[in-house]
């Protein structure tokens, strides 16, 4: 059991900076998801904790120990790889017991502990098979078993669900979350799937171009995205973003104007004539009518009925805006239409893409 500390970690590959001056702390027993698009530096961050990459500068601590220069084997971690990396020439039992073998645990004891872990993960009937003879879901569980068998201080997960098909992925997701809660081991989980991060993590760290742009509980990150990048990355479909100009106490675009007075507090430091971005989540948008004060007009672009809900997309001032409408019957709108919303759900981002917070 231990916490993990990153102090000003930078990692460069030649001229390319993969991770740029990143600092954070994962508390003992906490489950943190590193979320970001491919190439954002999340996997590099994970691999530096594992000891598979050396940071260019900064320190890494596991518990009280500085492990920045330590070899992987001195760090006492368990890691699940994206492709599972099960050794093809060993049985499932030998695969699971490999961390015990390199620690000099005897044959009988290895077998016993591997069987025990396998039973916990419901793969005990596979112990004598080889990786090539079992299903993807079973391989995934085997690689989890191998990561936990030696009771490491920290678990690392590198997109462990991305090779599973959609149905199995949901199953494995709740299974992994359950397991982590049960074992209570500090965990770092890398993924590019925002739903996975939301569903599993105690806290989510969103990474973009080598930096952590927001770090907080999933719902906080979802409800108060710190930047347009985070707003756009979380949620499916993502938050609608509209470019507007702030002038004369109103948000103006080529086809609509919205009263900005409810946001006066946030806009205190914004100069007249600034370009801003408005954000609104699809679930907070509804079809508008004449009576709506907060209304944006547009042209119907597509209507997608999904069963319990429908997605309606309008073309508004050159951008696409999507509404998630709940109810049994999809709307039948064509041609000109408008969306309405409650200003309490509107997010305002400054010229630099950062959220303008209420003061």
């Amino acid at each position: 059991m231990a916490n993990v500390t990153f102090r000003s970690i930078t990692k460069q590959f030649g001229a390319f900076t993969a991770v740029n001056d990143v600092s954070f702390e994962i508390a003992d027993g906490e489950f943190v998801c590193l979320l970001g698009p491919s190439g954002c530096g999340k996997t590099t961050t994970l691999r530096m904790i594992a000891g598979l990459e050396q940071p260019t500068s900064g320190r890494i601590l596991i518990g009280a120990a500085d492990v920045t220069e330590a070899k992987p084997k001195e760090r006492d971690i368990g890691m699940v790889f994206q492709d599972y990396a099960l050794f093809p020439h060993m049985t499932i039992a030998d695969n699971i017991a490999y961390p015990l073998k390199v620690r000099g645990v005897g044959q009988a004891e290895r077998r016993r502990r591997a069987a025990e872990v396998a039973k916990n993960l419901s793969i005990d009937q596979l112990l004598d098979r080889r990786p090539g003879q079992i299903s993807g879901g079973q391989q995934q569980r085997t690689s989890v078993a191998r990561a936990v068998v030696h009771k490491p201080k920290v678990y690392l997960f590198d997109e462990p669900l991305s090779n599973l098909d959609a149905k199995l992925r949901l199953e494995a997701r709740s299974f992994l979350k359950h397991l982590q809660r049960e074992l209570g081991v500090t965990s770092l989980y890398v993924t590019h799937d925002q739903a996975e991060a939301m569903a599993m993590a105690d806290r989510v760290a969103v990474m973009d171009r080598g930096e952590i742009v927001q770090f907080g509980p999933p719902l906080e990150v979802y409800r108060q995205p710190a930047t347009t990048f985070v707003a756009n990355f979380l949620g499916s479909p993502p938050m609608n973003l509209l470019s507007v100009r702030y002038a004369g106490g109103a948000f103006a675009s080529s086809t609509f104007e919205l009263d900005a007075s409810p946001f006066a507090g946030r806009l205190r430091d914004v100069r007249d004539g600034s370009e801003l971005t408005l954000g609104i989540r699809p679930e907070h948008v509804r079809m508008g009518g004449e009576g709506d004060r907060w209304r944006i007009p547009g042209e119907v672009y597509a209507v997608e009925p999904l069963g319990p809900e429908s997605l309606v997309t309008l073309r508004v001032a050159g951008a696409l805006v999507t509404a998630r409408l709940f109810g049994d019957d999809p709307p039948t709108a064509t041609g000109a239409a408008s969306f309405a919303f409650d200003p309490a759900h509107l997010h305002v981002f400054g010229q630099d893409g950062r959220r303008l917070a209420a003061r």
Partner: protein
Amino acid sequence: MRVVKHVLGRVAFYVVAAVFAAVFALPLLWLVFAPFGSRATLSVALPDPFTLSNFGRVFANTFAVRALFQNSIIQAVGTMILVTLLATLAAYALSRAPIRGRDVLSYGLVLFSSIVTGTAAMVPIFLLIFNLGLIDTHMGVILVFTGGLLPAAIFIMRDFVDSIPRSYEESALVAGASPWGMFRDIALPIVRPGMMVVGVWTFVNVWGGFLVPFILLRSPTKMPAAVAIYSFYTEGGTPIITLTTAYALLYTLPVLALYLFVNWKYGFRFFGGIKS
């Protein structure tokens, strides 16, 4: 109409395939029949009467037997062990260690080894082996073959090592293995098919190699089969065809057997494949 066209297409396919087959089979046909005949002739004919006596006479010739079952094997197996071992280590390093210019190095060495080869290279190599005092020794032949075959062997082996996901070794390291333990427990077992292929490839090359032993060896007792095969002559100086072909067949069999083995075990796919 479509049926006719289909049938004509099939017929054309079989005719062309048969021509290809004949082109490659005909020059070898004589070699398949001649060893079993009692009369020496250069024409293809079913052996009549069929006899195995030529093989008996080959086995009675101690010089020929020693060349095939001792000298050829010493040289081919010796080179095979050396090349497989060194190529595996080198290819692994080129694939997994941060060595600058490793791609240019692998490809460049294969090209360079195709340039410094044959009779041109035998002049300085002969002088080198002569100065080392290794003329007329198995060791000299083994060393020269090893040097010449290594670049291509490394190239083939790298193809294998590169195709192995690095996460195997990484997960072993994270599980707590030392670099050496990781190499022994994980990397070596996984690249074993590659080692088999490189080993077989090396064996076949040395087994069939003529120029190197022809130039580096002097005494008849050390000649491999490739050179010894020229020894079945009558006192008048004409080759004894029945014996020579029987010997050639025996000499070829291991190569065919190894090909069939590799083909059966791994499929004879193209391992970035080079044959010199």
